[in-house]
């Protein structure tokens, strides 16, 4: 009788939910082709070409046309790849450390009123300080440029991750708290099995903001003292007024940032499959 009811139950599963269940099992990314973004891209490149043509005079153009930039990009690729590697060696450790520390500290202070009272006033003062102001000091005090840049990326990414994790920990639904209490979860179990997964949506928004900050701080730090890297590339050719390479460097940095954000978005979608 019991198995009979369960089949009935499965049949009466609302169509909407079944669709959702099926949609979840289908691999993402197979969406219909959208041409609207390409329209904008095309328009932007056309405008670029038109403006570059209009202001082109003798000598060094301030806005080189697309073809020139593309050529510069092609020729600079080896240098840009080396630069990317150098930059990522700063960004990734700094960002990873910020995520680990921000999530751990956020979960603990977000679930303990006492630790929260101790820590939040400090966070309120320290978090809004623009991390760029640490750069000269970090470079002066820490032994290597790599270390100081990593530190600055860490500081910049830490606060958004931390603050969002705290918000996530505070937003854990009452029913999940009740269930954890009824199941007799220890504090550590509660953090690991309930608060952490429940906070993941917030944590990922914090990581998105943190990664953006990380890129900004990375490139700014490289303007100060790097001998390789994406920000350094742009600064270096700006010093020589080599605008094609400079614009190529800007575009390339945009692509790298976009790729990193997209990768994070993929991880997010994977980790939060259970959401809705």
């Amino acid at each position, binding site marked *: 009788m*019991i198995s009979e*009811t369960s089949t009935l139950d499965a049949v009466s599963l609302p169509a909407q939910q079944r669709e959702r269940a099926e949609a979840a099992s289908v691999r993402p990314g197979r969406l219909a082709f959208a041409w609207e973004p390409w329209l904008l891209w095309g328009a932007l490149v056309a405008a670029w070409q038109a403006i570059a043509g209009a202001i082109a005079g003798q000598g060094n153009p301030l806005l080189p046309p697309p073809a020139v930039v593309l050529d510069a990009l092609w020729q600079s690729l080896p240098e840009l790849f080396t630069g990317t590697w150098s930059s990522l060696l700063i960004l990734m450790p700094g960002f990873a450390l910020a995520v680990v520390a921000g999530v751990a500290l956020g979960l603990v202070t977000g679930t303990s009123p006492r630790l929260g009272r101790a820590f939040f006033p400090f966070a309120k003062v320290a978090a809004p300080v623009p991390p760029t102001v640490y750069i000269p000091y970090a470079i002066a005090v820490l032994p290597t440029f790599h270390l100081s840049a990593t530190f600055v990326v860490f500081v910049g990414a830490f606060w958004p991750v931390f603050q969002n994790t705290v918000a996530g920990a505070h937003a854990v639904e009452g029913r999940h708290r009740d269930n954890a209490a009824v199941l007799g979860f220890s504090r550590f179990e509660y953090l690991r099995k309930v608060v952490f*997964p429940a906070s993941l949506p917030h944590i990922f928004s914090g990581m998105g903001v943190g990664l953006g900050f990380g890129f900004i701080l990375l490139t700014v730090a490289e303007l100060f003292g790097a001998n390789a890297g994406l920000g350094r590339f742009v600064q270096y050719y700006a010093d020589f007024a080599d605008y094609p390479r400079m614009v190529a460097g800007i575009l390339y940095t945009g692509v790298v940032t976009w790729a990193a954000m997209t990768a994070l978005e993929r991880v997010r979608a994977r980790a939060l499959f259970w959401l809705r």
Partner: protein
Amino acid sequence: MSGETTGALRVEGLRFGYGGTTVLDGIDLAVEEGSFLALLGPSGSGKSTLLRLIAGLEQPGRGRVLTGDRQVAGPGIERAVVFQNYALFPWMRVVDNVAEGVRKAAPGISRAEARVRAVDYLERVGLRDVAERYPFELSGGMQQRAAIARALALESPFLLMDEPFGALDPVNRARLQDLLIGLWQARTPRPTVVFVTHDVDEALLLADRVAVLGASPGRVIEDFAVPFERPRSRAALFADDRFHALRESIAEALDADTLARLASA
């Protein structure tokens, strides 16, 4: 089954409020070991709050809750709770949700063994086939079955249920009522059940006793014994004059409380 507490439940002189509002006042209840008590009342009568106090999720301002001769100080796995809103963890597979209960009832068993036993509990509620699914892939009725399976897995002497079928459609609701009674009767010794509902028919179908709560503040205004033999069938109940008389008495008690409240307002 945790052996220290017997399955008798007592509530003595319980009072609960927050701010200036008194939610519950002067609640006294004695629930026999292995019996099924329905807490029936309109919204605002504090019946869910009373259940949370028994569960240990809230602390009373005055009075106490006793399981056997032990005073309830907080939540504990000897009092399993099923909530209204299918409170499974959405990030865990159904089987893992239940396995959390298994591991608490049998500390020290391996993760794999806990999962095997969890599937057994899911089998009892007819969910073996969806054990590896996630809660969002299940209908409301199936989620609530899984929540019941998790509560069963705790093997607790007390089972507390807060309008567990309130959000279900009538067909699923009837099925789960039958399932619950079947599971309750199948266990030896039977757990002591406290079941919150606002549905008079549901209370009379399931319970040995119905405590009727009035509102503002919540208190027990009547306590009815439900005399029908088990197994009960809906058809037999509806054909029974005593059923209609009880229904009538409960409705009168609730109406009288509402009128008294209106008159005093």
